[in-house]
């Protein structure tokens, strides 16, 4: 009887040890999920734009107005703010100026009668399942009286749309990209213009 009791006791003890191994991970898991609350802070990201590179070009003057199209590189806009306010990307430009002596000396002269037209492209969807920003009509940048160009909106994301990153492919079509009309009255020299890409959340 004593011998039997000792055997039973050993079996019970063995089972207890095996059970302890089974219960230990569960207890540890309970300690992680039940006893300690998981906390953290989600910081707002930023709204940013990567303006494209625009290829420089040269042309031979003909005495009459002519059009040149130059490729516009890839670009990107990212809304990581988490605000769902929506945003706009606008483009403005300075009127082309010419450095007639080609040496960078003297004040550059503004060329009258030229226009810039930036063809808009559609955002590539990629892995982003949100509603993409809307490509606006091609941006016609006409010279204003003060020598600058009126800004034009090229991409618009209404409230609740456009979140996350959006890529825009390079536009190297011969009749797209950035179209520059060079007036017939243009003089030879080194021309320069600056395109400003502005990104901003929508106003309240």
């Amino acid at each position, binding site marked *: 009887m004593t011998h039997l009791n000792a055997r039973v006791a050993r079996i019970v003890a063995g089972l207890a040890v095996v059970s302890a191994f089974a219960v230990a991970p569960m207890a540890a898991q309970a300690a992680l999920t039940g006893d300690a609350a998981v906390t953290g802070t989600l910081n707002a990201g*930023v*709204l*940013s*734009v*990567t303006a*494209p*590179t*625009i*290829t*420089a070009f040269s042309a031979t003057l003909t005495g*009459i*107005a002519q*059009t040149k199209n130059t490729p*516009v*590189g890839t670009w*990107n806009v990212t809304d990581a*703010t988490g605000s769902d*306010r929506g945003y*706009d990307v*606008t483009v*403005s430009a300075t009127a*082309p*100026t010419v*450095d007639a002596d080609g*040496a*960078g*000396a003297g004040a550059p002269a503004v060329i009258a009668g030229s*226009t810039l037209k930036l*063809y808009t492209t*559609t955002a590539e969807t990629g892995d982003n399942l949100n509603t993409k920003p809307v490509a606006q*009509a*091609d941006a*016609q940048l*006409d010279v204003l009286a003060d020598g600058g160009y*009126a*800004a034009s*909106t090229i991409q*618009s994301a*209404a409230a609740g749309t456009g979140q996350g990153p959006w890529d825009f492919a*390079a536009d*190297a*079509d*011969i*009749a*797209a990209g*950035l179209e*520059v*009309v060079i*007036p017939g009255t243009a003089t030879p020299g*080194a*021309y*320069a*213009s*600056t*395109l400003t*890409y*502005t990104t*901003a959340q929508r*106003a*309240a």
Partner: protein
Amino acid sequence: MATVPTAMTTSRLPIGAVAVLASLALAATATAPATAASPPAAKRPTLALSATGGSSANLLRGRPGRVLHGAVTVSNVSRHRIAVRLQPADIRNAANGSADYTTTKLSQAGRWLRLSTRTVRLAAKSSRRIAYTVRIPQSARGASHYAGIVAVDAAELAAAKSPGKRAQGRAGFTISRINRQAVPITIRLPGPLTRKLTLRSVKLDVSAAGAGLVLGLLPRGTVLMQSAPVKLRVSRGKATILRNSSTLGQLFPGSKLDYRIAWNGRPTKGDYLVRGVIRPKGAAPVYINQSITFTPAKVKELKRETPPVAQVAPSKDGLPMWVWLALGGAAALLLTLSLAVWRLARRGRRTAEAPAPAPLMHALPDPDSHDQDDRHDRSAA
């Protein structure tokens, strides 16, 4: 005779293969320049600008004569040290709606803004809070006023401002670009919120880029309109010349805009009827029913200002038009060659199926035939 079709079969493969290869080569050369002309990838942004305290902090409430306080956070998102230039701005309407931040000749609420600093130097991956004040003049009227703060990387600005040095020694056209970040600030004063859009003019305008229908608009009232869908049609007699369906962005009160809709091709002299409607959100619709005249003087002006060769319509979603033309030519060439091969094969087959030569051929053996020669040789042997 049976060898003729065999010869045709062996010659058909090279012709077809050559045609296919020619078309593929044409396609390859057609697409190659388009990709080769792609400019290099853009530079990553260096800075970010946001309203401190979340985007709701962009809305400040006050009364005439009061001074309001706010702040923006400027961040350096690059891995190098940068200097950021901050400027107060007026908000005007861009040509097709939404905010155009202007920093020169401030005349609106941008003048009320005072920044605690104009230049911020930031170490890599660091941020700084910049305080600002808005001093509302005693004379301010209307419920809403809009201003903005813009931030530019000073290095980008400096590079763009010295194009003469960059272009030195080489003629050509250099285009710089600047990344600019802006934060809109809405200043809300007591008063009713009203919205109204007025159509000032409808014109057929001429510029170096071509003709365009220009709608002169003036948003009015005391608060902005979120958007304004436009739908219109231009007709001449019974013919529709132009259809447009588009949407204007946010419209800020008190700022005129000339919304330009590109005209397809060149208009001819005469009268055109413009009919349509603009439906701004939260405001009454604006109906358009107006006749416009394109005068002979405008026709001359258009001819003088625009390039003589009409531009090929851009193909936005795929290959350029000229690539399609080259591919079309290659396909036509392939079709012509295939037709020629088929016709030659058909002719050969007909010849093969023709009746056998007359038995006279056998009755009169050719004394010069090899068989005869062989026989003679054998007999000689």
